[in-house]
């Protein structure tokens, strides 16, 4: 067993520098790597390019990095819910590259899978297709989309083991598995870290081979954006 365990977020994020491209899992605030984000704030690295479906809210998630102006470019599918984001984007401080959510997920997965490019119909005929190659398959037009190329990927899982194997919970899974092995180094933070052999090999969502560093996170806030309930 190849042990991927590191002590904490500080050790896990060793090597992250200004101007790097990072992938961050999560959908809204669900399943985001809270400990890694906190450590990025502490490191104070600047001019990051962040590939993440969303950009957090003003005071949580990637919003924490935006507040400190650590992000130079966001690659996302949806960036509402964040006033500071809006301000930086409108002022031109922040470059925003909006891409269809399915293409975002598949471009992460393509990087993981060593597939340099693939075709999807999403965005054809829209401004998303401008400057992109298009091609017809079965009478339908498609765009060629390419794999992402990132330095670090940061994901959050529910359970993990020292071999780097991961199990996600509920919809906190989202982009996290697709971002494993999609960057040069993938850092996984987990709520529960087990010795190798404790997780059932059949129930693992992502194999440890895609993970370079794993640590047990703490103080998960798991903030809810829209607490919607059914009244009894």
């Amino acid at each position, binding site marked *: 067993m190849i042990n991927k365990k590191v002590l904490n977020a500080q050790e896990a994020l060793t090597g992250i520098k200004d101007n790097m491209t990072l992938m961050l899992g999560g*959908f*809204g*605030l*669900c*399943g985001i790597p809270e400990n890694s984000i906190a450590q990025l704030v502490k490191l104070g690295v600047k001019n990051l390019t962040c590939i993440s*479906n969303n950009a957090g809210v003003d005071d949580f998630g990637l919003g924490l990095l935006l507040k400190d102006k650590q992000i130079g470019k966001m690659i*996302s*599918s*949806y*960036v*509402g*819910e964040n006033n500071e984001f*809006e301000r930086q*984007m*409108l002022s031109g401080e922040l470059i*925003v590259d*909006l891409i*269809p*959510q*399915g*293409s*975002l*997920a*598949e471009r*992460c*997965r393509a990087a993981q899978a060593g597939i340099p490019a693939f075709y*999807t*119909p*999403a*965005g*054809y*005929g*829209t*401004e*998303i297709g401008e400057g992109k190659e298009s091609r017809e398959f079965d009478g339908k037009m498609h765009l060629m989309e390419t794999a992402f190329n990132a330095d670090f990927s940061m994901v959050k899982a*529910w359970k993990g083991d020292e071999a780097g194997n991961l199990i*996600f*919970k*509920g*919809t*906190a*899974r*989202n*982009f*996290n*598995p*697709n971002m494993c092995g999609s960057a040069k180094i993938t850092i996984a933070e987990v709520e529960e870290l087990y010795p190798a052999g404790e997780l059932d090999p059949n129930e693992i*969502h992502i194999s440890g081979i895609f993970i370079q560093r794993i640590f047990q996170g703490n103080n998960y806030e*798991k*903030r*809810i*954006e*829209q*607490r*919607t*309930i*059914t*009244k*009894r």
Partner: protein
Amino acid sequence: MLDKIGIAKRIAKEVKDRYYVNLGIGIPTLVANYINKDIDVEFQSENGLLGMGPFPYDEEVDADIINAGKQTITTLPGASFFDSASSFSMIRGKHVDLTILGAMEVSENGDIANWKIPGKMVKGMGGAMDLVASAENIIVAMMHTNKAGESKLLKKCSLPLTGLSCVKKIVTNLAVLEITSAGFQLIERAPGVSIETIKKATEGKLIITGDIPEMKIN
């Protein structure tokens, strides 16, 4: 004339037995409440859940179980969780039978614009571009006119497009229309709405063939 709930109720009638359905944010979300209880339908939430249930009771709330609108939700028996790439495999691979979403504009050839207004803050297309590019059955839920009273059913969309020639049907506060090669084919009128009213509110080519019934919703 229909209110938002009326639109949702009318669209609910388009949801057939054994459909997998993806509901957009806004009016489409309401549709789930009015589907015939005698049919089997599963809702797909593109953030990674099939078999979405209602909102949880207070004590059941789980931050790790949300829908694409970031609302806390529950799962029904037979539900499954999956990653985002798999979710869009369902969408891009045409495994989802019906997509219901809102729009700012629809053109007479079925183009849709619903993600961007130049000069305004752009929040992003989320999964909408993937959905409209692949879904074979897309129903748009929207008001027939915008707040300024201008038609949202146009000859040509003025806003940046989300997808080309993809909308199949539109349900508005005034009418139900199908997109045909000839234009907006009027299918039903909302209760109490005249053909004249619909004509005035429709900038794109409106096709009216024979008697147009008033829609029935419960």
